[in-house]
């Protein structure tokens, strides 16, 4: 195929990827957007094959590789539980990172095939671009593996703080720069692998001090990294699709990290430096005896069935308990009874952006019953019941009222303005931020202690009486 035409097709696939992201501006256009993305990927693959015209044997290898990987991918995609999305995304990022390293290695071992010079005489520019790509790729790989392990609970979510880690990281960073300069000078394969090794270690060291609960920000940041790695290799390969996509993915990850940090009212730097958020922080016990009004499923059923307006506030606990289907059933019962039911989603409810929305969508909750914070917050004042299920921090009034609180300034859902506030959780323990929630002890609050799913199911049963 003519190189110009090929470049044009790569541009087309880059534009299709833009359209894919653009589609996500609304649920109705999103499916078509995803289709654009698939077509773009198809065009990129077909163009490369037409350009490379591999021999029959090599072509067989390609089909084999695509089939094995594709099969694994397709099965994973079908089987994965929606609640495991954060882990899945982290795992997928690690693959892209490692693939970037492998591609760069292939380019170093066969520079002619990639048009970046001949063995022993690779263009300096290509070497620089490549080493950037490989370093970022390797960091993405090990970083994502750690994030995956922490999110999947296979590794403790506790921050692992190694003494002098800032010093070690700085040393590794300097070593990386030296190695890249060396690589450009000597083009030695050993130096190349040293770069890979240093970056792999750096990836681990950068992520282990970050607490498990901060992993979503990390995953998004690694997403951004994988984009920059792809863009760097795109420069080496002179491939427009890679450059455009790399920039898109790079921006996207960076913006999502920013949105999350803003939603938590924390600085990106403080997240990255780590040390925040252990596993499950115990409730602060300040010795003051406070009374809590506890209720039963029957009480809750009675209250809601006689309400005019109920707003449901889901949080991380709903995801853990997989309570979304039971919740939907409960809402159906209420609606059948003429109650106005809405869902209120805080921007950082759950453990990744849009987490609650996906789970509710999975349970067939129509998206036009689901509202964002700024669109629904004023309605709590008119609501009879706020049904808070597995959410905690996102309702904590100290973020609004108590200047000394570590989460002060984070926007919250004003559930305390509702006539009654039902709180479904297993204990009086705190949430992700490890801060006591004063709402539990308020007059209008009724605690429904128990697992989110079980409790909701019991309420549904009680509604039938």
């Amino acid at each position, binding site marked *: 195929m003519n190189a110009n035409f090929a470049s044009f097709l*790569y541009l087309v696939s880059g534009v299709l990827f*833009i359209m*894919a*992201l653009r589609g*996500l501006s609304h649920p*109705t256009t*999103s*499916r078509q957007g*995803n289709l654009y*993305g698939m077509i773009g*990927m198809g065009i990129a*693959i077909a163009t*490369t094959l037409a350009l*490379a*015209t591999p021999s029959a044997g*090599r*072509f067989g*290898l390609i089909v084999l*590789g695509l089939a094995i*990987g*594709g099969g694994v*991918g397709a099965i*994973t995609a079908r089987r994965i539980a929606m609640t495991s*999305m954060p882990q*899945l995304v982290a795992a*997928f990022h690690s693959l*892209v990172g*490692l*693939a970037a390293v*492998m*591609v760069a290695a*292939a380019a170093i*071992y*066969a*520079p*002619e*095939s*990639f*048009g970046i*010079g*001949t063995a022993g005489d690779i263009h300096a520019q290509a070497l620089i671009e490549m080493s950037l790509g490989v370093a970022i790729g390797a960091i993405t790989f090990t970083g994502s593996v750690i994030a995956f392990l922490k999110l999947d609970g296979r590794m403790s979510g506790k921050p692992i703080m190694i003494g002098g880690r800032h010093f070690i990281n700085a040393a590794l960073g300097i070593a990386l720069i030296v190695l890249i300069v060396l690589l450009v000078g000597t083009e030695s394969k050993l130096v190349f692998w040293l770069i890979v090794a240093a970056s792999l270690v750096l990836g681990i060291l950068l992520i282990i001090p970050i607490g498990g609960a901060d992993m979503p920000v990390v995953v998004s940041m690694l997403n951004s990294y994988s984009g920059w790695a792809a863009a760097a*290799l795109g420069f080496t390969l*002179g491939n*427009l699709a*890679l*450059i455009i*996509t*790399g*920039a898109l*993915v*790079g921006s*996207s990850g960076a913006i*999502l990290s920013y949105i999350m940090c803003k939603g938590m009212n924390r600085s990106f730097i403080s997240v990255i430096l780590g040390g925040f958020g252990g596993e499950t922080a115990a409730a602060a016990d300040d010795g003051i005896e406070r009374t809590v009004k506890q209720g039963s499923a029957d009480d809750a059923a009675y209250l809601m069935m006689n309400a005019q307006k109920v707003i449901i506030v889901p949080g991380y606990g709903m995801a853990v308990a997989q309570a979304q289907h039971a919740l939907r059933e409960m809402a159906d019962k209420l609606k059948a009874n003429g109650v106005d039911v809405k869902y209120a*989603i805080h921007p950082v409810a759950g453990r990744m*952006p*849009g*987490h609650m*929305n996906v789970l509710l*969508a999975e349970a067939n909750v129509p998206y*036009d019953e689901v509202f964002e914070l700024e669109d629904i917050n004023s309605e709590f004042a008119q609501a009879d019941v706020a049904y808070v299920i597995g959410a905690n921090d996102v309702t904590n009034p100290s973020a609004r009222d108590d200047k000394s609180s570590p989460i002060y300034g984070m926007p919250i859902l004003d559930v305390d303005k509702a006539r009654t506030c039902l709180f479904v959780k297993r204990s009086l323990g705190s949430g992700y931020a490890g801060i006591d929630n004063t709402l539990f002890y308020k007059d209008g609050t009724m605690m429904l202690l128990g697992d989110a799913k079980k409790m909701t199911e019991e309420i549904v049963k009680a509604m039938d009486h």
Partner: protein
Amino acid sequence: MDQTLQKALDQLDQASAAVRLAVQNMATAPGGAEAAGNAAHAMSGGAIDPFVFRFAIFVLAIFVGYYVVWSVTPALHTPLMAVTNAISSVIVVGALLAVGIAASGVAAGFGFVALMLVSVNIFGGFLVTQRMLAMYKKKDK
């Protein structure tokens, strides 16, 4: 002036023919074309390095990314993460090249590993996104 140019161009044509021959001889190692290209590049003097264009494309794509991502509705942020992950596997382009035409077997091997890894992503990423998006429904009435 015209004659000097004419002579020069004739010589250039000769050279070009010779290089083409050399390149054909080297079918297994396509680095020759590259070398010739470079020589030519130095000659044409004023020509602009493709790097500049690529850089411009990169910068503009960052702007596009910035705007397009901010326009994504928060309810679809999880699918956004999945789909950006899926499209970042265009790196498959490099893997295909390595498996398809790399002269060195080692390189082809690396390419094959990359290809497998990234195929997981391509299929997994788009399909899981599709699965998620299929769940977002409007109230039916």
